[in-house]
């Protein structure tokens, strides 16, 4: 048949619904896919990343400033508290040194009295009081330790205290072996010089500093310029050294406080705030791990980045899926177009063949007519001539037989050309009123020869009351011929028989074409109307025949279905609707009758 020709075909079972790898169409499609993908990602991801980045940056700046400012305030307040504390200590001792008569200063009892009064009234942080003469000998003492007659001449603080009106020492262990610091005041009277020395409650003082706790890691300590801790040993000396170095390089620059960042030996970044104390002798250092100080910031940032990544993944995934679907659709559309083009080519081919057949049929008709007339002429002659009934009779009889033979064969020729003409004359899709029974008879008479070669007989079981339908006779012929040809190709082991029946079913005329061939396996059955699907060997079928039929019947508003059982046979049901009206009037039907 016209639509089972040379087109190279996809091997059976390899119809890729979307094939990204094979064929020349894959290249442009891949480019298309990549471009769409890129566009989607760029357009949606870029602003997302940008907004995220900008927000994170500004939030970071603002938040760190806020946190630092807050800590700074805390530290400064603490520094003022500590300074006040020290000032108060100095003032108290200075007052005692100034206001106490010298003899009382030399007397343990009165000193003890003074100590109690002082502790009770306003300076509970004074632990003990001692009076030392200019040679460093403690001449009087009041307090919990037994330090009378202690010799301080060689103590570092003593030398410093001797030179100043008031003095606050660094923390040291001293004679009692407990870290503490002392406050001294000088009392000069004539040639006598007395130094009043008081020990400050170290625990109390420590509390002032240790009170400053923020978060999990925020804490404070005090160091002197030599890097000696002035508070409880809660910090590594290594850290202290590095902090001092940082402070030295950063400088206070005329201010009494500063902030900087430095890593711990273990690599953790710490935020530092430093403030000078005691006129710059001591430094109050506050430190907090950045991860702690900026915890909320970091959490927010982590959240933002997580959302960004998830969103990005979502966008990329969606982009990928959308792109894939789009490309698949484009691919499908291209396939459809290919099929349509093929159909156009096929119908064009059919039309061309039709024209050719019509031409040939007509040309042959004339010589056949002449031949038959000539035969008739010979017959005439035999009639005319007076023949010897005895001598010529057998010859004449033979000639008459031969002439009859010529007449029979001539009529055959006539029939053949007639069929060819009626099949080929109209290859258009104009809708006409068609009696499908006649059409089926016509088509089967064309297929009968092929069937006979295959040892298959065709039986028609047509409903004589079948109403006419409005279809394109050409298309209907094409559909029927295709289905019948398929049935012939189904090849049964035994004698094949194809039964074509027609009947009316409600609003449809139904044509059933059954064969007793090998049948179609269920897996193939689903795909039988798919374009390019064929089980015929390569080169024998395009796999288009049935799909074209399907398209044609669907266009008519009808349907083709198929039932099959392997080894038993296959039945195609073609239904054509009755209610479709003919576009042109019924006067237009002029199918030659034989």
């Amino acid at each position, binding site marked *: 048949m016209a639509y089972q020709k040379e087109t190279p075909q996809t091997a059976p079972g390899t119809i890729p619904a979307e094939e990204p790898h094979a064929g020349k169409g894959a290249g442009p499609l891949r480019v298309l896919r990549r471009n769409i993908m890129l566009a989607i990602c760029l357009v949606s991801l870029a602003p997302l990343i940008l907004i995220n980045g900008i927000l994170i940056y500004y939030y970071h700046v603002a938040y760190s400033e806020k946190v630092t400012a807050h800590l700074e305030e805390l530290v400064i307040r603490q520094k003022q508290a500590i300074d006040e504390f020290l000032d108060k200590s100095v003032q108290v001792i200075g007052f005692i040194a100034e206001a106490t008569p010298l003899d009382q200063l030399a007397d343990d009892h009165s000193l003890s009295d003074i100590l109690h009064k002082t502790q009770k009234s306003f300076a509970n942080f004074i632990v003990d009081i001692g009076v030392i003469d200019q040679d460093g000998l403690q001449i009087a003492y009041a307090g919990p330790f037994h330090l009378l007659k202690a010799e301080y001449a060689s103590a570092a603080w003593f030398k410093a205290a001797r030179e100043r009106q008031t003095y606050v020492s660094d923390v040291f262990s001293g004679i009692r072996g407990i870290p503490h610091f002392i406050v001294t005041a000088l009392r000069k009277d004539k040639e006598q010089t007395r130094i009043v020395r008081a020990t400050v409650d170290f625990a109390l003082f420590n509390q002032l500093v240790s009170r400053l706790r923020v978060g999990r890691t925020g804490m404070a300590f005090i160091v002197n310029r030599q890097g000696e801790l002035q508070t409880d040993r809660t910090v590594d000396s290594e850290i202290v050294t590095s902090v001092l170095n940082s402070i030295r390089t950063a400088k206070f620059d005329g201010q009494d406080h500063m902030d900087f960042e430095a890593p711990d030996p273990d690599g953790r970044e710490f935020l530092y705030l430093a403030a000078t104390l005691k006129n710059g002798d001591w430094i109050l250092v506050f430190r907090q791990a950045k991860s702690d100080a900026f915890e909320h910031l970091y959490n927010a940032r982590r959240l933002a980045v997580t959302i960004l990544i998830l969103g990005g993944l979502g966008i990329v995934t969606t982009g990928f899926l959308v792109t894939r679907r789009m490309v698949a659709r484009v691919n499908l559309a291209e396939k459809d177009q290919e099929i349509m083009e093929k159909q156009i080519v096929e119908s064009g081919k059919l039309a061309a063949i039709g024209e050719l057949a019509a031409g040939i*049929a007509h040309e042959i008709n004339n010589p056949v*007519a*002449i031949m038959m007339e000539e035969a008739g002429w010979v017959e*005439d002659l035999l009639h005319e001539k007076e023949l010897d009934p005895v001598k010529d009779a057998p010859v004449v009889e033979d000639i008459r037989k031969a002439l009859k033979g010529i007449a029979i064969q001539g009529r055959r020729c006539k029939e053949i050309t007639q069929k060819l*003409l009626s099949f080929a004359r109209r290859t258009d899709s104009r809708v006409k009123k068609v009696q499908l029974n006649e059409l089926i008879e016509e088509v089967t008479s064309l297929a009968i020869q092929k069937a006979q070669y295959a040892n298959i007989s065709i039986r028609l079981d047509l409903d004589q009351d079948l109403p006419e339908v409005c279809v394109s006779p050409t298309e209907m012929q094409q559909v029927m011929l295709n289905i019948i040809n398929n049935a012939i190709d189904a090849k049964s082991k035994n004698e094949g028989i194809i039964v074509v029946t027609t009947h009316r079913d409600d609003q449809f005329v139904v044509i059933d074409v059954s064969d007793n061939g090998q049948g179609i396996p269920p897996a193939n059955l689903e795909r039988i109307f798919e374009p390019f699907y064929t089980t015929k060997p390569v080169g024998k079928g395009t796999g288009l025949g049935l799909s074209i039929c399907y398209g044609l019947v669907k266009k008519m508003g009808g349907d083709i279905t198929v039932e099959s059982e392997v080894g038993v046979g296959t039945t195609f049901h073609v239904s054509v609707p009755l209610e479709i009206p003919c576009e042109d009037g019924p006067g237009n039907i*002029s199918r030659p009758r034989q």
Partner: protein
Amino acid sequence: MHIAKVLLVDDEAAFLDVMNRRLEMRELSVRTALSGQECLKALKEDPAIDVVILDVKMPGMDGIETLREVKKEFPLVEVVMLTGHATVETAIEGMKYGAFDYLMKPCNIEQLIEKVAEAKAKKAKHEEKITEAQLKEIMGRMA
């Protein structure tokens, strides 16, 4: 006595030849023409022609055209169309233009003779009526 005088028109000489022989054998007087033009010329030359047997499909001036010319110029002459299958519609169309009948090629010779005879009879009757009318007219004038 001839049944009728026919003019056989076909573009195939062989067809004309054999038909000529067969028809003459059946007591028809036959003239042939290979084209529409020749047909018209022959009719002009020979007013005795009763029936034209006309092939529908001819190159140049085709059957329908020839028929219309014939009917225009020689309205009394009857035309029987001969046609292949492809041109049945054309033959039907021809009958609308005044052809007497049509036959399919290859045709049965007896059928053809019959049709020719019918056509000739129709023509004769027609002519008779005309003669009668003319006679009446002359008689009326005389009265």
